[in-house]
C-alpha cells in the first residue's frame, strides 16, 4: 500500500513539476488573494496584522480547492482514470499517494503565503513549533478530506461548482482550528494552541482512515 502511495505521489508531483501549473498559476493566485485582502481591508489600520492568521488560512483554503481540482483533472486526460483503475495498484495506496501529493503542494504554497503574510501584512513570527505543528496537522486534514471529496466530484459535469459547496463546510473545523492555533502562536499563549492542534490531528486521522476505506469504490465510478 505504501509503495503504491509512493508511486502515485511521485507521479503526481512529477506532473506538477513538469507542467508548472502549481508554480505558475496556483502560487501567484495565492499571492493575489493576499493582495486582494490588503485592498479590501484598509492596510493602515492594522486589521491585516491582527487578522493575518485567519486571512492566511482562508487563502490556503481557496488554494486547496484549486490543488484538489487539479489533482483529479490530470487523471481526466488520455483515459488516466481508467489506467489508474486497471493499474492494479491498491486503492488505499492511490488515495494516500494523491493526498500526499496534495499535501506537499499545499505545504509549498503555505511557505509562499507565509512569506507573503510576513512581508505584506507585517506579521511577526513567534511560537515556531506550534506554527509548524498546526501547519502539518491542518494540511494533512485538508489533503485527506480534499482527496476524498475530490474523487467524489471528479468526472461529474458540475464538479467545479459542486466541490466547493461539498468541501468547504466540511473544512470549517480545519479553518477554525488552524486559525486558533496560529493566533495562539503569533500573539497569544502557546499552550492555548495545542488543543486546537489536537483537533486538527483528529480530523486528519478520521479523514485519512475513511478515505483509505472509501476511495476504492469511489474511484470505480468516478
Amino acid at each position, binding site marked *: 500500500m505504501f509503495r503504491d502511495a509512493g508511486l502515485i505521489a511521485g507521479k503526481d508531483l512529477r506532473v506538477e513539476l513538469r507542467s508548472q501549473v502549481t508554480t505558475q498559476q496556483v502560487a501567484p493566485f495565492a499571492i493575489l488573494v493576499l493582495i486582494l485582502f490588503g485592498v479590501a481591508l484598509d492596510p493602515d489600520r492594522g486589521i491585516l496584522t491582527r487578522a493575518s492568521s485567519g486571512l492566511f488560512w482562508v487563502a490556503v483554503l481557496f488554494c486547496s480547492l484549486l490543488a484538489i481540482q487539479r489533482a483529479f483533472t490530470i487523471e481526466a486526460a488520455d483515459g488516466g482514470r481508467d489506467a489508474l483503475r486497471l493499474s492494479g495498484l491498491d486503492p488505499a495506496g492511490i488515495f494516500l499517494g494523491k493526498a500526499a501529493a496534495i499535501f506537499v503542494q499545499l505545504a509549498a504554497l503555505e511557505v509562499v503565503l507565509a512569506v507573503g503574510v510576513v512581508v505584506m501584512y507585517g506579521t511577526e513570527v513567534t511560537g515556531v513549533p506550534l506554527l509548524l505543528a498546526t501547519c502539518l496537522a491542518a494540511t494533512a486534514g485538508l489533503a485527506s478530506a480534499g482527496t476524498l471529496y475530490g474523487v467524489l466530484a471528479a468526472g461529474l459535469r458540475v464538479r467545479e461548482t*459542486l466541490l466547493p459547496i461539498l468541501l468547504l*463546510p466540511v473544512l470549517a473545523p480545519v479553518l*477554525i482550528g488552524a486559525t486558533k492555533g496560529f493566533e495562539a502562536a503569533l500573539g497569544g499563549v502557546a499552550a492555548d494552541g495545542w488543543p486546537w492542534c489536537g483537533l486538527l490531528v483528529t480530523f486528519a486521522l478520521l479523514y485519512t482512515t475513511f478515505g483509505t476505506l472509501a476511495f476504492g469504490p469511489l474511484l470505480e465510478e468516478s
Partner: protein
Amino acid sequence: MTTPSTSSSATRALGGLTLAGLALLLGYALVWSPPDIAQKDSVRLMYVHVPTAILAFTACAITTLASAMWLRRRSEGWWVLGGAAAEVGIVFTAICLLTGSIWGRPTWGTYWDWDPRITSTTLLFILLVGYLALRRIDNEAGDAAQRGIRGAIVGLLLLPNVMIVHYSVDWWRSLHQTATITRLDPTIEGTMLFTLMLGIAVFGLLFTWLLVHRFRVGWLEERVGATGLDQALLERRAEADVVMTAGGRA
C-alpha cells in the same frame, strides 16, 4: 382504478392528528402560556424554534443511517429515505434559522450573532444543500442498479460532519464569551414547559407526516424511472413491428 395518491388511511389519520395538534399548539403558544418576564412575548418563538432545531438534527441522523443501510443492502427504499429525510430536514433547518433570527432581533438586538448554534446550524444547512445537489446528479444517472455510491458516502458523512462542525464551533465561540446567553431558561416550568413539550411532539408528528409523503413520492419517482425504460423499449419494439409488417406488404 383508484386515483394515484401518496396518502393512505394511516397518513390521513396522522395528518389529521398533526392539524389538531397544531391548533392546540397555537392555542397554548399564543394564548394560554404566559409571556416571559425578561423576553416578554418573543419567547413564544421558542415553541417553534426549539422543536425545528431538534428535528433538523434528527433528519441528519436519519439520512446518515439510511445511507449506511443503503451501502449495506442496496435496497432503494433506504436511498429514497435518505433523500426524503434530508429534504424535510432542510425545510426544518430553514425554519429554525429564520425563527432564531427573528427571535434574536428583540432579544439580542440583532438578526445575526456569532453564536455557536447559529453558526453550526447554518453550516448544517449548507451541508444539506450540498448533499441534495449531489443526489440530484445520482438520480439523473438512471435507475437504482446503476446508481453510484457518491451520494451515499456524503450522506454517511453527514452526521459525523455535523457533529465535528458543531463541537468545533462550540469550542471556538466558548473562548470568546464565557457566559453565553442562555435562551432556554433552565428553571422553565409549568405551562411554558408543557407548551414546549407539546411543540416538540406536534412538530415531530408534522415531520413524520412530511417524511412519509416525501418518501412515497420518492418511491413513485423511482417506479417512473424503472417503468419509463420498459415503456421506451416496448415503443421501440412496436415501431420495429410496424416497419416489419410494412416491409412484408411491400
